[in-house]
């Protein structure tokens, strides 16, 4: 079977891609997308470790399950916030939101 290292490699890649996206996307929804990548990276780790290292109570999978649910909740809240600010400022580009600075 595939060595564990490949899974971690993949998750690291997704994680970094997500970070990159978070840092560079102008669009708030784009950032949200990138954040999902980060969460998935962690989930891959969790599931892979759960399988490779063994766990009597399947903790990795349980946590991954929670993460999926939380990701859904967070996305909902995030999207609502995006809609709210879109309503107020008519923009979804991050750099437009600098009423408060310095």
């Amino acid at each position, binding site marked *: 079977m595939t060595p564990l290292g490949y899974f*971690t490699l993949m*998750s690291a890649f997704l*994680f970094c891609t*997500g*970070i990159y996206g*978070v840092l560079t996307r102008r669009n*708030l929804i784009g*950032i*949200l997308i990138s*954040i999902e990548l*980060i*969460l998935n*990276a*962690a*989930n891959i*780790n*969790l599931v*892979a*470790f*759960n399988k490779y*290292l*063994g*766990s009597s109570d399947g*903790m*990795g999978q*349980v*946590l991954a399950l*929670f*993460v999926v649910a*939380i990701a859904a*909740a*967070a996305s909902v*809240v*995030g999207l609502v*916030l*995006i809609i*709210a*600010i879109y*309503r*107020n*400022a008519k923009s979804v580009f*991050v750099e437009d*939101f600098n*009423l*408060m*600075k*310095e």
Partner: protein
Amino acid sequence: MVDLQYLYPELVLFGFALISLIWGVLSSNKSLIASLAFTGLICALLLLPSTFDASTSAFSGLLVGDGFSAFFRALILLATALIIMLSMADLDILDEDKGEYYFFLLSLAVSLMLAVSSRNLLMIYVSVEAVSVLSYILVAYFKRDVFSSEAGIKYFLFGALSTGVMLYGISLLYGIFGNLDLLSISAAVAKASVVSPVFLIAIVFVLGGMAFKCSLVPFHMAAPDAYQGAPTPVSAFLSVGPKAMGFALLIRFLFTGDSPLIVQWSCLAQALAMITMTVGNMIALKQTNVKRMLAYSSIAHAGFMLIALAVGTSLGIKAILFYLFVYVFMNIGAFGSVIYTNREEISQYAGLSRKNPYAALMMTISLLSLAGLPPLSGFMAKFVVIAAAVQSKFYALAIVAVLNSVLALFYYLKIIKMMYLSKEDDASPLNISSVLTLVLTLTLVANLFLGIWPHGAIQWITLP
């Protein structure tokens, strides 16, 4: 049902949260909701002692019922109670969605309480996420206010990234130890002879998530914007509740077990403490908005508390706890004064001491206490922290800390100067309410009492 008994306060609180939600939706008379929420808090507070003699761990080790978590749960309940009183007075929140507001506030309190009593990273993650999600909503609660929305978005982006990174760190820890229980992790670390790079990275990621809640540099940057834009009671709560949780988690994480992690991490903590204090205070110097200034000041205070953490002694821990306890009163006093005076710009404070001496006095006492001047409680808090630093021979840290408190006074004085020294008068109306007066008087008494006679609160702190 011993496990559940441990959760009675949280359950009751959440019950009240639901009731306020439903009441808010169903009834048109919303004036009593705040009192209802407050009642819930009182009930939870009353129930809290009954959980102290519960088993030391509950829910298969996910939660612990030690004195430490008891302290933090009480602290959070106390802070929430004060915040509810602030919220009652803050005009802007009275408009609509009141039931929902208190639902969020109480749920947030429940999440915080769970977080501070967790000993398992899984539970920690879940409750931290709950805290995050709920606080995003609260920050952006003025949905028609572009400031509030912007604050919400920024807070959200930051929080999401932080918790994402933290989760990634947790996943790595899981990979290393096959377990997320802090006790067993610490035991494993103690056994391992070499620290692996993955472990270091994982810890940094996890600590990063917690540091965000404490708003430590470099995870502080959303805090000023969020505090400035959020409804004032929410800002006050964010600077107290999640911060307390952040420190509780840091302590839990770094101090669990016989060979706590802090030994290796003290150096980093010291560096961060110095930078955090200095950056927070420095930037605060030039602020013109009081809430924003208080945000930077809360960053600086986090740095101050981090000193005690970096020291890594039991005195240090006690110092943080006492500091947080005192900080609740100082900071809520300051934010409460902001609500009471109904002024956010420093220039608006001109001549307040003549217009309303009471408000000016309350603000002054809170600010001077924040600055750490004797005989106010802030001094005692700083005193204990610096004592812990000196005891462990962290002299440079202590000196940087005290110099920072001078820097801090510089900007606190700006407001005081406006209120007392300025010859102009600002005509903005005040927001005088009896509840607020009560809160402010309470914080004043606490500030004085904890400064002059902290004997009761401090007796568990003993200088060697």
